[in-house]
């Protein structure tokens, strides 16, 4: 019961971070701001959601197979935790090489 409540809390907080990342992607003014919002929000949201799923998988009891499945889910989370910021960095750097201008203070005052 405690594990189920914990997993629900983790998944809800993960969905909150996904939501803020999507709002940032849609509403921020600039390419770099958008990449920052999605890179951070998506990573934390996916990490929290997958942790919640791993905890929920253990709520029926700690058997060997369920622990193994939870370890595999946490390996996916670890992979996303490494790969997603790197992909964001690569996209941002490609944008900088392609000549995308960052938003400056003067652009806002117009």
């Amino acid at each position, binding site marked *: 019961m405690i594990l189920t409540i914990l997993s629900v809390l983790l998944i809800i907080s993960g969905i909150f971070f996904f939501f803020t990342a999507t709002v940032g992607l849609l509403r921020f003014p600039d390419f770099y701001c958008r990449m920052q919002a999605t890179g951070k929000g998506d990573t934390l949201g996916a990490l929290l959601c997958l942790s919640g799923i791993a905890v929920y998988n253990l709520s029926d009891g700690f058997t060997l197979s369920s622990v193994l499945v939870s370890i595999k889910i946490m390996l996916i989370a670890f992979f996303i935790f490494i790969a997603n910021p790197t992909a964001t*960095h690569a996209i941002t750097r490609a944008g900088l090489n392609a000549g995308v201008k960052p938003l400056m203070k003067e652009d806002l005052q117009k």
Partner: protein
Amino acid sequence: MINRFENIIIQTISRLLIPPIQLYALYVIAHGHYSPGGGFQGGCILGASFILMVIAYDIKETKRMISEKINTIFIVLGVIIYSGIGAVCLILGADYLDYGILNKIFSVSPAKARALGTFGVEIGVGITVMAVMVSIFLNLVSGGEHEEAQE
């Protein structure tokens, strides 16, 4: 000369991640008849690891790992494994790719021989899919030149 498209973060993370990706591809190939996966999926993941190497490093660096000659040999080798297992079944007196007859060679039960034959065919499919994916990507990204990526 420093290439402005090279980057130490991307290269380090790729160097960290490529071996687990290849290990996971072998897991998908070898575990294909118990869980989702199989030869095509595992071969695609194995090819994607080489494609990641092309993106993070260079075509020259990747061709040092898997050269064009060895890649072409892999394409043929997978098809030979696939059709060879089928032909062995044909020679032993059953239909093409009817693996149950393989128990005459391996001295196991027909069901076990069937699982082994499926596994061998999956290995052949995985090798061919990996090599063809790498070959298609190299030809597309360099315009058939195989020297360096076109911008």
